[in-house]
């Protein structure tokens, strides 16, 4: 390091100013944005059951109590299988849609796209059109530039904080959170996560934008593995468009349909030129289709110079969108949805664990009977109290905790109860030292709530 000249430690990023666009795909995206954000901001405020006195938040991931509330269901860590199933389902659906029509997820549903879109609405509302923004950014600081920039960041920050607040509302009941906010008694971690998530929203949607897709998104890197020649992708029809017209006096003969207006480049949120072909930066937002169609209409040419089409079609081959790959994904999706649906419909919100006493295999009780001791753990995963009847069946006649043939176990809503139970049998009925027995519990108010678990009853070797 001998030179005194300043060293540029990092390369500069060039800001992209996407031009606002209107058209059918823009309308799809706006609808998507409004619906998705409506769900995100609205869902935690939904009470459940909707018309009842005793209500709770319909969707609440109650980490402190390790329970996930989802409308009618309450999931426990024991239901992890459902979560894994759901994640596999999401991955499969992503494969399916990507194979069918490219990056539909990225263009319309990804949170990064959705929030960036809203942040750009705010930007356009306060800072004006693309040209005005570029001009203002190049100009020196003025009072007008200052207030517009400040206003934009202020609105962005308010929206971001509200987003962080809503996000935390999925984990801490919103009524509690609102009360704590109004009385300034927020817990340190609640405040931390509101600020953290708010900052992430502000940073990602306000500053990072397309760089999230380019540098942070793993899906962008491997989506091409799901593409084939029959995938609907946004492409420029080179055969029709080239040679492009250059300038007013273009005398290429015969000129293609592309008037080289650069609008497809200006509207692109990732700053690429779709005419260079399919690129990993393309998030499939179809803004270039909308822009180009508008121009084609103006110059009296058929629409669709840039359109959703397949590689096969562009090469003049017949289109074959319904292909084995799509069938396989469809079958897998249907099977998985059925299995998950069946599992959910037949889920029994009750768990029974039986743990043998580790200290003594067996012992002789004072009445001369042979006794084994167990701990039973009953998990009532329903949101109401239950009294369960515990029974034991096997080859022997058992007495439970004395002279009973069954006992009652009361477990309050959403709680776990542990009970020690002793099983006694007449030693003269034993013919071997090891018996398989079954301990079952059944709710007294709902006979469908039942669990039956195997256990071992042990006796002496020399009976």
């Amino acid at each position, binding site marked *: 390091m001998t030179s005194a000249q300043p060293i540029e*430690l*990092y*390369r500069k*990023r060039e800001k992209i100013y996407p031009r606002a666009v209107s058209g059918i795909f823009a309308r799809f995206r706006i609808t998507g944005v409004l619906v998705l954000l409506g769900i995100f901001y609205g869902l935690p405020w939904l009470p459940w059951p909707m018309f009842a006195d005793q209500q709770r938040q319909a969707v609440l991931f109650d*980490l*402190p*109590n*390790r329970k996930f509330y989802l409308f009618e269901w309450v999931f426990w860590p024991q239901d992890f299988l459902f979560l894994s199933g759901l994640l596999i389902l999401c991955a499969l659906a992503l494969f399916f849609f990507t194979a069918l029509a490219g990056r539909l997820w990225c263009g319309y549903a990804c949170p990064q796209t959705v929030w960036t879109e809203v942040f750009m609405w705010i930007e356009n509302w306060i800072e004006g059109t693309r040209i005005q923004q570029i001009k203002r950014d190049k100009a020196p600081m003025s009072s007008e530039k200052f207030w517009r920039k400040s206003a934009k960041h202020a609105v962005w920050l308010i929206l971001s904080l509200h987003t962080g607040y809503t996000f935390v509302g999925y984990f801490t009941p919103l009524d509690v959170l609102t009360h704590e906010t109004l009385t300034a008694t927020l817990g340190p971690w609640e405040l931390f996560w509101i600020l953290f998530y708010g900052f992430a929203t502000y940073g990602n949607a306000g500053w990072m934008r397309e760089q999230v897709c380019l*540098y942070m998104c793993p899906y962008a890197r491997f989506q091409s593995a799901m593409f084939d020649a029959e995938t609907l992708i946004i492409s420029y029809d080179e055969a029709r468009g080239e040679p492009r017209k250059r300038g007013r006096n273009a005398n290429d003969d015969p000129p293609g349909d592309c008037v080289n207006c650069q609008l497809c480049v200006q509207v692109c949120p990732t700053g690429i030129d779709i005419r260079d072909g399919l690129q990993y930066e393309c998030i499939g937002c179809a803004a270039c289709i909308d822009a180009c169609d508008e121009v084609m209409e103006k110059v009296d040419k058929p629409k669709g110079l840039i359109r959703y089409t397949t590689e096969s079609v562009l090469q003049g081959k017949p289109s074959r969108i319904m292909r084995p790959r799509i069938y396989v994904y469809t079958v897998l999706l249907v099977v998985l949805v059925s299995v998950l649906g069946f599992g959910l419909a037949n889920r029994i919100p009750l768990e029974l664990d039986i743990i043998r006493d580790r200290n003594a295999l067996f012992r002789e009780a004072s009445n001369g009977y042979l006794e084994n001791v167990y701990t039973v753990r009953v998990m009532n995963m329903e949101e109401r109290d239950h009294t369960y009847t515990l029974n034991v069946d096997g080859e022997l006649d058992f007495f439970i905790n004395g002279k009973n043939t069954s006992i009652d176990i009361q477990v309050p809503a959403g709680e776990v109860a542990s009970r020690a139970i002793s099983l006694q049998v007449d030693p003269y009925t034993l013919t071997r030292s090891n018996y398989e027995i079954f301990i079952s519990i059944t709710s007294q108010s709902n006979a469908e709530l039942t669990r039956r678990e195997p256990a071992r009853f042990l006796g002496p070797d020399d009976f």
Partner: protein
Amino acid sequence: MINQQFLSSFNLRRVLIAILWPSFISAGIALTAFYVWVDPLMIANVFGLPITERIDMYSISFLFLWGQAILASIFCLIFVAPTHHLNPNKRDFDD
């Protein structure tokens, strides 16, 4: 420490992303996978931490795991950068 030529081929945001983001994801996955099976309060108890709220334990664990993974990302960046600036006479195979 890190070859400047190597760093200057990226922008600062990209370097920060490479350090902060993969570690964030890994920490999230590790946290979820671990606490599905283990009650956070049990861990607090084992280490004798004065923590009574699970949410505190989740948060602290996450930040701890994230920090660990950030460390791994930084090492990764250091080792991936070419080293010929440390000894100009000896060239790496991959520089």
